[in-house]
């Protein structure tokens, strides 16, 4: 591999490493925080998909196209068996 490509690859590796070390945790925490609210709203609107109809009406159907992409991940997340070790903090 030519030297300039090697250097570029090394630069990319350092950039990715720093992103992983400095920002990835921030990203994960933010996503989890946001999803805790989103999951709750989706549960209120589409709980019938989980077998617990709470708020099924025409409004939920009108909103469906906007959240369709998220429903699969939401269902998997909510139905997944949770454990306290799932939320163990990254403390080394």
């Amino acid at each position: 591999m030519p030297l300039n490509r090697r250097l570029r690859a090394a630069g990319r590796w350092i950039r990715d490493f720093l992103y992983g070390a400095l920002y990835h945790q921030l990203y994960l925490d933010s996503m989890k925080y946001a999803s805790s609210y989103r999951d709750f709203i989706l549960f209120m609107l589409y709980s019938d998909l989980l077998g617990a109809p709470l708020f099924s009406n025409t409004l939920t159907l009108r909103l469906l196209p906007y959240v369709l992409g998220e429903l699969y991940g939401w269902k998997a997340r909510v139905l997944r068996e949770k454990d306290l070790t799932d939320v163990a903090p990254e403390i080394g």
Partner: protein
Amino acid sequence: MADILNTPSLWVLGALVAYGIAYFVYSKWVDEKIWEVSPDRPTPAHMYMDGVEFFPVSRSVLYGFQFKSVAALGPILGPFVAISYGWLPALLWIIFGNMFIGWVQDYSTIMITVRNEGRSMGPLVYQYVGEKPRSILLGYLLFYLLIISAVFIYLISLFWAVFPGTFLATLTIIVFSVIIGHLLYRLQANIYAVTLLAILAVILAVVIGVKVQGPEKAINERLGDNAQAFWMVVLAVILFIASIAPMPTFITPMNFVSTFPALAGVAILIIGALVSPAVGVTLKQPTYTEFWPKIGPLFPVLFVSIACGAISGWHSLVSTSTTGKQLDVETDARPVGAGAMLTEGMLALSALAAYMVLSPEEVGAKISSFVLGATRLSSSYLGGTAAMWKAFFALFLVIYAITVQTLVTRYWRVFSGEIFTGGLSFLGDKYVATFTGLVIPVLFALSGSWWNLWIYFGGSNQLLAGLALMLVAIIIVRMKKPPTYALAPAVFMTIVTISALIWETYVYAHGVWVYLTTGDASVLQAKPPLSEHPTAAFAMNVVFVIVGIALVVLGLMMTYYLVTALSKARQESG
């Protein structure tokens, strides 16, 4: 040559070669022959992608994340305890612990998650061992959280008491973290601007740590022996607020800001250890002291004194709860799991180097001596004043510890909310749980027997590693593969750690027994101000005996269930 041998450099380089062999030969063999990894086999990150917990992340990003997650204070503080035996035993344990046990656990626990639909430790124990062992595991973690809290509360308060200016520096970081949280989550500020602010906050905190020492000096002088107790209360208040506040307002931004001094400190230490021959820093610690110094016998105490840095059970939780769910392809498990652990070994070696360059008198029984050693290593090649480096490394340790502690206190609260039900549900209340999660560790820390608590911490942490490795062995047996590479370290760690926990329980029990029979309070494990109140010191020692017994019993029960599950797996797999 003799000159180079008398510096940390050659030893650190030697360890690098050993880690190279572990990574390029041993881990490669395990990867190819035992797990038979394939880039074509889908990982949970792809199978269950939801963008929150499950999503593929590139190997270099995940390596950085894993390294940052596993390299906390353990590898930095552990060598301080281990150096009681001389630097050579500590060095050998860091090298061989990493080579044969540390990476094995981190890598293998990622693999068991990847091969089991992204399940974390608890569900895996439930699936392969049973329901009761999972409950025991959670009970065990409960005790572990109390001990780790006591260790860090003691450490942070000690640093505030020993290094004036550090509290104000910490407060600066906390205030900036709250501002950064607001900027990020309310105002959605640009991440580069926020990064710049975080770096400025760290610089400002160091300047404050150097320049504004007067008020804290006055407080410490006025309070004398009670200064540390005072700082413990201040810390408890901060931790209480952190634990009950929403994550984005305190803990998340604090975790973010603290990464900057942490990474900088780690890099400075590692480079400092490597360039030591060029700058004239020499070894001052004895190579070997004795088998049975004051801290306890080399076997088993040495092996639990350096936990993270050689092998840490908590890594198995990190690997299964987060990393394993984000692995892009199976072939990334080795660079991420094994690579990050071996890099952490480098950090432990560099921290050891910081103690190696201090004389035995300078180290003494002072955990704060790390700051002195790190200052010597850094200023020798980077220049700068000793005061500046002292302020930086004191802040580095405190910020690291306080970030870990905020997470632990919050985890305790979440934990309590889940496990205390029925008549005990009041213990799971947000405020009550936070309160108990702080009061008990503060009482533990007030005993002042930090060394003993550290052995409990290391022992329970590494017993978790032994149990995780045994779980790995069970899964490998079910895969009809030879489990020796995981089983042998599992057996070693289980024996060593249970022995260490029994030893430490004996130390406390012996003190209690002598006090009861002779009334001699000097044998109790306590320091001022607690040691001035023999009855309170006695009561605390009794509590530590109970904690020790609980840890040993829970560890033995867990071992029993795992061994039973292993033999059952062997029978069923033919």
